């Protein structure tokens, strides 16, 4: 079985890089094939990269609080592009200001994300989730 391929990056006009760098490296060390888009990545670029690389999952970061705006309609665009089956994860500081994480979680799940992570969340835990989800889909 080949290694699963994942796309990482920070979405929208967001320049926070450290989280996505650490996440990418951890994924690589865990045996994933990682396509690292870095910061300031338009949603469309995630889709294109997923298509080009036959990705199994997209792991988006968003720290600057305006992520909700950036990913409006993202799931729909994925489906239109034929990426029905790609797992969508997002993590970071997902709203402006102090807020309850559960609210953000609900919002982003509604927007079509399979899993949503709070700031400073443990990368190892996320990778374990990813493996489990891929397994459930018969992909790992």
């Amino acid at each position: 079985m080949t290694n699963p391929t994942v796309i990482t990056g920070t979405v929208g006009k967001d320049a926070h890089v450290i989280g996505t760098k650490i996440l990418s490296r951890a994924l690589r060390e865990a045996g994933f094939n990682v396509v690292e888009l870095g910061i300031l990545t338009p949603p469309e670029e995630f889709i294109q990269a997923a298509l080009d690389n036959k990705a199994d999952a997209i792991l988006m970061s968003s720290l600057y609080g305006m992520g909700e705006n950036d990913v409006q309609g993202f799931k729909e665009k994925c489906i239109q592009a034929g990426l029905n089956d790609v797992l969508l994860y997002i993590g970071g500081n997902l709203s402006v200001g102090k807020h309850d994480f559960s609210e953000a979680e609900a919002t982003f799940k509604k927007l079509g994300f399979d899993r949503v992570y709070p700031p400073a969340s443990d990368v190892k835990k996320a990778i374990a989730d990813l493996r489990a989800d891929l397994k459930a889909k018969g992909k790992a």
Partner: protein
Amino acid sequence: MITTLRNKRLDEKEFLKMRDPVLDLWPTGREVDLDEAVEYQKQLPDSKNWHKLARKMNAEGRTAIFPRAGTGLLEAQIRLSRKLEESCVPFIPVTSDSYTRQLEFEKVDGILDEMRKTGRNLLNGFPLINYGVKQTRRLIESVTVGAFNPRLSLKSYKLATEISFAAGMTAVAACPFISWAAYEKDATLEESMAVNQYVHRLIGYYADRGVVISTDNHGWILTGMQPMTVNLATTIADAIMVAEQGGRSITSVVHLMGNMAQDLAWIRVTPRLLREYLDKLGYRDVEIAGVFAQHTPLFPMPQSMGGAFAFPNYTAVVAALGKTEAVSIRTIDEALGVPTEESHTLSYESANWLLQIVRGQKFELQSAQVDEEAAVAEAEIRAFMDRILEVGDGDVIVGCLKCVEEGFLDSSFSPNKQVRDQVIGIKDSRGAIRWREFGNLPLPEEIKKFHREKVAEREKAEGREMDYDALVQDFWAFSKGRLTGKPE
């Protein structure tokens, strides 16, 4: 590398021509009338001029707070600035939002409408270009004591500073490295230098007419964790560019990483070397407004109130011991999101308590550890500055560009593609930051030896290699109330 950009003062006529396309970017651009703006600036009281306020802090032996703050609506930004004034914060930032930073003004207009309608906060900063000169003056006029400083992005710099200065702001972080290295992926340093040269020249235009606008020079903002000397050397390079375009006031920013000996050493060495290089290159009439100590991103992640207070309180104590004119601290809500007004108030009240109590004592300390760190820092900063001037043949712009290309200046964890990213830092046993990988840095051999020994010392003490995992643990150490990272 072929570049036509030079560190040479722009001719005034030429500069004025460059302004046209900038002011046309959005209708508010045409609200800027330079002659009127100079007059407006001149009638502002001293208490709103950054340079004069910083000198006042110096004369009175005080350390003030320069926070980070910005919010979407003008009314809210005014309330916030007044709150800051009430909290005795005289240096007031106007952090712009991320859409403004990308020149998406129509989008901002839409969001502002929605915010007014729904009452929700959907912008992470103040959209000063959409508001324009006249409206933004309401902000400047809303306080009695307070010098404003916009926080911008590469793309927005030219128009945003035109509007900011015309509206009465008196300082800006116009330094080519800051946006390029920390906020951009594809933009080149050369582009950033060109943009900043415009801003510096604008400052020079005001200076020629007697209006002093200061630049707080942040240098190459480091996203990773490494000794601050690349950063500090580039703050000096920044200053030289400002000076060449006619700027008269430099605010020397010194980023703190949390080890007192090292932080105090950097605070001591930087303004001294800054003065030396300015003088050497003929900018004797450029003044140093003061030293602004600044918390670097050490990631105080979600944690309880207790630690959240301790971290900025610690920074305040170090700045006060270092007798800086100001300090930038985070709020207790830093890890959670854009801070609330209450969180600003509490954070600065707490820090101000410490700043007053410690500065009032005029406590003088000597420390062999500070002396040692100062010697190391001085050697490193000189190595970088001298290499810049050498490969640039005296031209600091050409020199910086070449140094980045060659990795003579470098940083880890950079989001920008131009950066070599061949260096790595790590803490030593006492929490001082060391170089673990030197990449192509032009450091003297004895300095490298010093760092190697310090890293080896910690490796021995902890019985493990100082690898990538150790580095990531070090990132989070302060958030966990620890000086250095420990394996979980």
